[in-house]
Structure formats: structure tokens, C-alpha cells
């Protein structure tokens, strides 16, 4: 078994033995999405209009919850050090960790989004666009957020600082992701937004692990 598969398998196994962490993010998403109609009012027309934004921001915040812990445990018990010493290039190991994070937080959120979309009275076509845009968007957030998590590793007040660092960088994804859903809702094409989102994801997947590995080495010095 090679190093990348070992890292991926280890993270997934650990999460399965401590399921509460995965479920927390999911329930957070559900609660946040349910709060808005309660705060704003139940008129279907208005809810439909604000749904893309709310569901996207809700998924974003829920994903952000677990990012702080991405490297923290490994840093504290010494496994991060061992990953830095591995003959396998660190960006690849980082990519494996990011993939594990996405499988455990981003993917469940995207899968849950059509169910929550029911609360906002969205039609099935829109639900599909919401699902795919969140699939891409949460993956993008995992890659970007990993860089932030690495920069704030072991720093006081790191979790909130992480949000401050990552959210501005994430705004383009938010704009195009929710824009795609809105476009579908008004009957316009969402192809352009999806393409741009995919392009951003590819860029982040390519350069993110590299920047992240550099930040981790800085933290380990």
C-alpha cells in the first residue's frame, strides 16, 4: 500500500471511529438552513429567491467548521512530522488528506442539499444544479481551506483566524456557485458559471497542495 493510500485510509478510518465529528457538520448545515425561514418568514416566493445564497453560505460555514481540525491532531501527535519526512512528496500526502476531508464533510453536505432545498420549495432542475455546484464548491473549499488551516496551525485563536483568512479568498466560488443555481432558477444557462467553478477547482487542486505543504513545513520548523 503506498503512502497516499495509507494517509487516505487512515483519515477515513479515524473518522469512522469518531463519527460524531462528521455528523456535527451535517447537522449544523441542517440547522442553519432551517433558521433562515424562521427568521425571515415562510412566503414561498421569497424563500425560493434567497435559497441559493442561504444554502451555499450554510454549506460553506459547515465545511469551515471541520477545517480547523484538518492538521491539528496530526501536528499534536507527531504524525505530521512523519509525513514531512516521507519519501513521497508532501503535496501528494496533503492532497490525500484534503480528499479525505472532502469525502467526510463536503460530499455529505452536497448530498444533503436537495433535501434542504425542499424546505425552500425549489424544483428538481434547480436541486440538481445546487447539488453539482456544491459538489465542486465544497471540494474547492477543502483545497483552499487546507492552506488556511496549515498557516494557522498551532496559532492562538486559529479557528476564527482561519475563517478570516479563507472567506475572502472563497468569495469568487460563492459568487459563481450560487450564481449558477440562480441562473437555473430564472431559466438561463448555468454552463458558464459551472465552467468557471470547475476551472477554479482545478487550479486549487493543482496549486493548493503545494502551497499547503509549504505552509506545513513553515509550521513544523
Amino acid at each position, binding site marked *: 500500500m503506498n503512502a497516499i493510500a495509507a494517509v487516505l485510509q487512515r483519515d477515513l478510518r479515524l473518522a469512522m471511529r469518531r463519527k460524531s465529528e462528521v455528523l456535527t457538520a451535517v447537522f449544523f448545515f441542517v440547522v442553519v438552513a432551517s433558521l433562515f425561514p424562521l427568521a425571515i418568514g415562510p412566503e414561498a416566493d421569497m424563500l425560493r429567491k434567497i435559497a441559493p445564497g442561504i444554502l451555499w453560505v450554510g454549506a460553506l460555514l459547515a465545511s469551515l467548521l471541520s477545517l480547523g481540525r484538518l492538521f491539528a491532531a496530526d501536528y499534536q501527535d507527531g504524525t505530521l512530522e512523519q509525513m514531512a519526512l516521507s519519501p513521497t512528496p508532501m503535496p501528494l500526502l496533503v492532497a490525500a488528506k484534503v480528499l479525505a476531508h472532502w469525502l467526510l464533510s463536503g460530499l455529505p453536505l452536497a448530498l444533503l442539499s436537495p433535501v434542504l432545498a425542499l424546505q425552500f420549495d425549489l424544483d428538481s432542475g434547480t436541486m440538481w444544479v445546487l447539488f453539482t455546484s456544491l459538489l465542486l464548491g465544497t471540494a474547492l473549499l477543502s483545497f483552499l481551506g487546507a*492552506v488556511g488551516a496549515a*498557516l*494557522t496551525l498551532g*496559532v*492562538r*485563536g*486559529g479557528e476564527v*483566524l482561519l475563517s*478570516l*483568512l479563507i*472567506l*475572502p*479568498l472563497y*468569495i*469568487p466560488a460563492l*459568487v*459563481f456557485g450560487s*450564481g449558477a443555481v440562480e441562473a437555473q432558477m430564472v431559466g438561463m444557462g448555468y454552463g458558464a458559471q459551472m465552467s468557471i467553478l470547475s476551472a*477554479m477547482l482545478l487550479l486549487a487542486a493543482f496549486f493548493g497542495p503545494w*502551497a499547503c505543504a*509549504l*505552509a506545513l513545513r*513553515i*509550521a513544523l*520548523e
Partner: protein
Amino acid sequence: MENFKIRWFHWAAPQSFYPLAGRLWPFFGLIAAVMALAALYLGFFVAPTDFQQGEGYRIIFVHVPASWMSMVIYLAMAFWAFLGFTFNTRLSGMMTQALAPTGAMFTFLSLWTGALWGKPMWGAWWVWDARLTSELILFFLYMGYIALTSAIDDPRRADRAGGLLALVGAVNVPIIYFSVKWWNTLHQGASVSVTKGSSMAHTMLWAMLLMALAFWAYSIAMALYRVRSIILVRERHTQWVQEVAA
């Protein structure tokens, strides 16, 4: 070529740069003051009243140069961060940290003057114009950098982590601007335009350029002044600093 390289790296040592910065910053400060006065004179007394916007438009002589500087300084920070990673010099990190507060100040000034301008023009303190929104996001980027470097105790780690953040941010700034512009045109937000309807009179342009140069000189002066303090704090255990302090 060897000589050239050696000369540059001579100035990269904090001990040599400290007196150089000390000689330069008053010079830039003076330039800044003179140009600012000239720009203000041009802007407030010479430039004609705008056809559409009356006298209130004159705040653009501060707003536009401040926006320009906020972006230029962020690029300068990214540049110094890049130098720091390439050559592993301590001074690069110090320069990046010295530039940040001034950049944040100009971003805030741009937002504030934008609001002061917007209120009489459109009746609202804030409009979600593409440029203003991008400035707001740039302000968050500055705050993030300052927060990160303040939170890390070890100066070397703070410099390198901050530098990486500045580089990642700099790469993202065009993407952010593009996405905000797209968002704005789609939603037909208000557009804050300096030259709506009329072409800008020559004096207006000159006043803005002069103010921009004044801000630029001011930024250099402030960065050089601030980096001197940073050098003294970072190098306080070396002999030359203890002699300076004595």
C-alpha cells in the same frame, strides 16, 4: 555581475539598511507633503465644478488615489514576500510587515471616502458597486494578513506564513475582482463612475495623479520609518542595536 549582486545583498542586511532607511524617509516624507499640498490646491481651487455632480465630487481626489495605493501596496507586499522566499532574507519579511498597516489604512480611506461620496450622490452610505465591493474584500485580505502575523509569536514563522498568505492573496485578487464585477453586472448594481457623462477635465486628472504620487511617497516614507522600528525590535540582541540604543 558579481559586484552588482554583492552590492544588493549588502543592503539586505538589517544593519546596513537601518541607516539607509533613516536617511531616506524624511526625504520621501517631504516629497509627499509638497505633492499633497499641490494636489489639494489643484483639486479644491483650480479644478472646475463638475457639470453633473457639483462640488461634492472633489472627494474623488482622495478616493481614487487611495484605491490605487491600496492595490499597489498589496502588490508591493506580495513582491517583498516573493523576494523573501526566493532569497531567504530577513529584511523582506520585515518590509512586508511594514507595508501592511499603511495599505490597510488606504483601503479603509478608500471605503470611507467612497461612502462619503456616495451619500450625497446616490442617497446611500454604501452601494454594492463592483469596485467598492472589491475594496471591501481587499480590506479583509489586509486584516487577515495583520491578524495572522500578530498571532504568531516566532518572528521568522510569522514572516514566512504572512508572506505565503500575501502571495496566495495576490494571485486571488484578479479572480476576486473579476467575479465581483460579474456579480455586479448581473445584478445591475449601482455603478460609481468618476467620469459619468462628461470627460474629465485636465486639471482633475492632474490633481488625482499628483495626489497619487503624494500617497506613494507617503507610503514609502511610512514603510521605511516603520521597518526601522521592526529592525530594532527583531535585532535587539545584536551588538549594533545595543550601541544604537545606548
